[in-house]
Structure formats: C-alpha cells, structure tokens
C-alpha cells in the first residue's frame, strides 16, 4: 500500500514539473511575441505567469476544502446523526490504513454522487448526496466510500487540486493573450527577417496549443487515477462486485443537478463525473472513464480482489496499458474476495430512501411527532404554532414546550449560520 502512495507521489511531482514548465514556456512565448528584441519584457511576462499561478495556488491552499464543500452545499454530520454512514467511513479508514477519519458531509440532492476533498489526509472530508444513500445498500455504499478514501490515501485530492490550479492558470493566461492578439495586436511587428518570423509562428502555435495540451494531460491523469481508486476500493473491501453494482446503479441516474453545484476543480473528485450528460462516452476531455468500462473491469477480476488482479482484468480489456506502477505490481499478493454482506437489498430501497431523508431532517434539527395513526409529523425549525393537526387522521397534537424551545433555538442557529 505504501509503495502505491510513494509511486503516486513521484509521478505527481513529474507531472507538476511538466505543467509548470508549460506555464513558464507559455509566459516566455507571449513575451517573445510582444517584444521579440527585449529580454527584459520577456522575463516580465514569465513573472506575470508565475504570479497568476501563485495567487490561484495560495487561495486554494488557504481554504480550498471549505470553499469546495460550501459550493456543493454540503453539511457536516456527526456519528449520532448517521451512525451507519459514519461506521462505513471508519471501516474503510481501517481497511486502507488511513490514520485520521475524514469529516463526513451530506448533500441534499436526488442525484447519487459522492466526492472527497482535502490537501492532507488530516484535513480530508468526504461528502455523499442523499440520493446516493437512498439508492445503495450497505455493501455498495461501503465500496463508494472505499473509492473516495482511496482518493485521499493516494493523495489524488492534493494532486488533482494542484494540477487543476496550474492548468487553470495556463488556460487563463492563454486566453488573455489570444484576446489581446485579436483586439490589440499592433506592436508585434519588426522582428528580424525569416528566422524571426519562424520563431513568431512557433510562439503563436505554442500559445494556442499549451492550454489544450495541458488540459489533455490533466484529464488523462484524472482518468487513470479513477481506475487506480477503483482498484484500491476493490482491495480495501475485498468485494469488487460492490463497487460494480454501485456504479451501475449510479450511472444511469446522475443528473445535472449536482453539476450546478459542482465546480470544474471538484469534478475529478466525484465517484462519477457530475458534469457529463447521460450516456456520453469518455473522450480526451473527460475527467472520468466511461462507467460501463469501469464496471466491466471490476466484473472481470474473477474472484480476486488484489491490485494485481485488477491490473490483469484491466489489461485483458485494454491491451498493453497498465494502471499500476511497476513497484506496486511486484509487491501485490493474492487476495480472495469476501462474501456478500448479510443484510442486502430489500429490492425497493424505499426504507433506505426514507432513512436518508430522516437524516437530513435531523441535521436540520426538525422536530418529530409520532401520530397515533402511524404518521410521523416533521416540523421545521421556526414553526411557531403551539398545535399541529395530523394531515392523515386529523388528530390535533399540542407541542410540548421543550420541543418549541428546541425549534426556536434551531432557527436561531440556522440564521446565524447563514449570516456567517
């Protein structure tokens, strides 16, 4: 396991170095186009490129997690609110050897999805939508959490944030330059004969291609790490079928609803791509491989759950390509698949759906009154009447004073939270 983390880190450093040199080269190319004969101005543009990058980097380092979670409208839950979800996260931390349990967040959205953030494992957080909790059974939820924990353990959350920021800087700089070429474009005449013109063409091509290439590199990397996280999830849970059936259940159902809240930076961290419309194939510019392909690889692991088994299944479907670094392949040993969990689906998933909704109400501090007819009345914070009638049987309940006080306090807390 530790080889994998280390190999991943080495690779990340390489990729970051490549992206950084693309950034520098882009700055230089622009400088060259603006003033071919003045090295001072050329280095000035290199400095500007680095400056843009640094500003973006520092903002994401300072409070990136909180911004991302807030932009996805995620709310933190404690163990007492969602014991099962919390237990599952703890289980996967143990299986992966992650020393700190990440914070757990829930998002109120019918679209089933989950993501992980955190530049360091100690600061990490995982978030799931109510839609996900409603649709998956325990084994499947466990597999999804395993995938997310794998992203944290493999430091994908750190790396994809850094790479995302750098690619973002490259795109912004390239964009600004092209615009100024179109609208300003006066000063770049002069130059020295044929050789100067040739260099000029190279610089223009560079400025146009750099953002595209950086993007392709970034997305390829993101897709690879999805496969890797799948492999780790199979190994942690020793149950590839769990993730396969979870992905299958999720894939048809992801709507653009989460996409509104999901930013581009966050997209690679989700279990399935929140930006993609249904049924689109994975191309050069997608963060995730096609879900059917991920399912197919998981299903052809034939009774084994090790990283090497995943690699073998992957190669059987994709030819010579590989997902694992060589040092990991050497260290991997046979690991058999475990049995299915005892309590599995009841087929309808209705009770899970209700549980997820109850959880949401609990986080929002709704008050609950059980009516004689079996109906559960849920009162939102800020409910000010002292009585409530049951919509089903008409029985009138009088609210106990402590319940009313609780609702008022919950409303105060929520107002405060909004102001902040």
């Amino acid at each position, binding site marked *: 396991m*530790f080889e994998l983390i280390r190999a991943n880190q080495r690779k990340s450093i390489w990729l970051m170095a490549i992206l950084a040199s693309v950034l520098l080269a882009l700055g230089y190319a622009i400088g060259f186009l603006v003033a071919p004969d003045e090295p001072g101005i050329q280095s000035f543009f290199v400095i500007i490129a680095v400056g843009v990058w640094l500003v973006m980097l520092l903002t994401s380092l300072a409070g990136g997690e909180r911004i991302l979670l807030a932009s996805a409208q995620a709310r933190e839950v404690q163990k007492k609110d969602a*014991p099962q979800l919390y*237990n*599952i996260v703890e289980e*996967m931390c*143990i*299986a992966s050897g992650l020393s700190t349990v990440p914070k757990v967040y829930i998002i109120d959205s019918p679209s089933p999805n989950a993501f992980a953030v955190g530049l360091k494992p100690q600061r990490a957080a995982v978030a799931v939508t109510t839609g996900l909790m409603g649709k998956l059974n325990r084994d499947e939820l466990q597999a999804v959490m395993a995938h997310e924990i794998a992203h944290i353990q493999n430091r994908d959350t750190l790396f994809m944030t850094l790479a995302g920021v750098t690619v973002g800087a490259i795109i912004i700089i390239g964009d600004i330059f092209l615009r100024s070429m179109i609208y300003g474009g006066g000063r770049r005449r002069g130059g020295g004969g044929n050789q100067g013109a040739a260099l000029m063409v190279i610089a223009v091509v560079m400025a146009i291609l750099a953002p595209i290439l950086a993007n392709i590199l970034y997305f390829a990397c993101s897709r690879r790490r999805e496969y890797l996280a799948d492999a780790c999830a199979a190994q942690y849970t020793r149950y590839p079928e769990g993730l396969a059936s979870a992905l299958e259940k999720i894939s048809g159902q992801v709507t653009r609803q989460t996409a509104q809240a999901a930013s581009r930076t966050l997209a690679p961290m989700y279990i399935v791509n929140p930006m993609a419309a249904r049924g689109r194939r994975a191309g050069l510019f997608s963060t995730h491989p096609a879900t059917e392909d991920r399912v197919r690889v998981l299903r052809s692991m034939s009774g084994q759950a090790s990283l090497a088994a995943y690699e073998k299944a992957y190669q059987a479907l994709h030819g010579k390509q590989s997902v694992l670094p060589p040092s990991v392949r050497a260290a991997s040993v046979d690991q058999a698949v475990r*049995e299915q969990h005892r309590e599995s689906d009841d087929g309808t998933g209705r009770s899970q759906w209700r549980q997820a909704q109850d959880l949401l109400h609990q986080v929002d501090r709704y008050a609950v009154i059980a009516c004689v007819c079996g109906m559960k009345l849920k009162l939102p914070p800020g409910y000010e009447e002292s009585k409530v009638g049951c919509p089903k049987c008409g029985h009138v309940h009088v609210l106990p004073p402590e319940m009313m006080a609780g609702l008022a306090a919950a409303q105060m807390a929520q107002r405060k939270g909004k102001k902040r």
Partner: protein
Amino acid sequence: MSMQWIVLIVIVVLIVWIVAMYNKLVRFRNQVKNAWSQIDVQLKRRHDLIPNLVETAKGYMTHERETFEAITQARAQAMQAKTVGETAQAESQLQGALSKFNLVVENYPELKANTNFLSLQEELTSTENKVGFSRQYYNDQVLHYNNTIESVPTNIVAGLFRFERSDFFELESPAERAVPKVSFS
C-alpha cells in the same frame, strides 16, 4: 587513487546501505505493531458492546438461554487471551457465537423493531466489519514485513539485527471461517 581510498569508499557505501535497510525494516515493523493495536481497539469495542446487546435482547428472547451463555463464555475467554494465536482462536469462537445469535434474532420480530436494539446491532455489525478489516490490514502488513525480512538482500540486515517474523492473525477452525450463508427471502 590509492587502494585505501577505494576500501574506504566501499565501507562508507556499505554503512549507508545498512542504515537505510535497517530504517526500512524498523518502519515496516512499526507498521505491523500499529496495525495490531488497531485490531486490539476493535476487539475491545466488541467486548464492550456485547453485555449491552445481551441485556437488551434478553427481555425478548426468553427461550435462548444457551445462545446467551455461549456468547458470554466466549467473550470471557476472548478477554483473557494473550498471544496472537490465542486471541485469534478465542475471537473466532466469539464470532461463531455471535453469528448464531444473529440467526436466532430473525425469529423475534418485536426485537427487530426495537430501535435501541437496531442501533446496537448496527454498532455490532460495524465492529465485526472493523475487526475484519483491521485483521485484513494487519495481515497485509505482516506479509509485507515477513517478505522483506526473508528476501535478499534485506535478509542479511534482518539477520544481523534479529528482526523476527510476525504471526498472521487467522481464524482457527475452517468451519468458523466459512460465514454461515442463509437467505431469508
């Protein structure tokens, strides 16, 4: 360059190599210890949960004295176990008793409707899983460590400083290793 210099360089390189290997082995050994402490935590948690579970269930399950006795006894034995082998043996007994209990519970619908019992059962299920996963992690670490100790060239350093193989945590009897498979549908 004279002969002495070459000898000196070889010795320095050798020392650096030994130090690096030694540190690597220590790191692996600590990972094994750390993984074991995680198992320990989960086993203790399971021992703490059982009295609560038995207390809650007793009121409903009046005809299942044997099941309860088996659990209590297995728990007492498990708490006294010392070595890795003993612990594994006792814990697999306890696990067997608990899975029998889980089967019997299916016959008591009132008990299954009790929210307190349900939350206890979720805790116990999860603790079982955690025991399983920490065992899995521990065994992975032990395998890794043992492989390193035995393979060339680290085995030289390991022999020099007396690094010893660690035991795997394995469930003893094959009958209990096979989780009972029952379908209720």
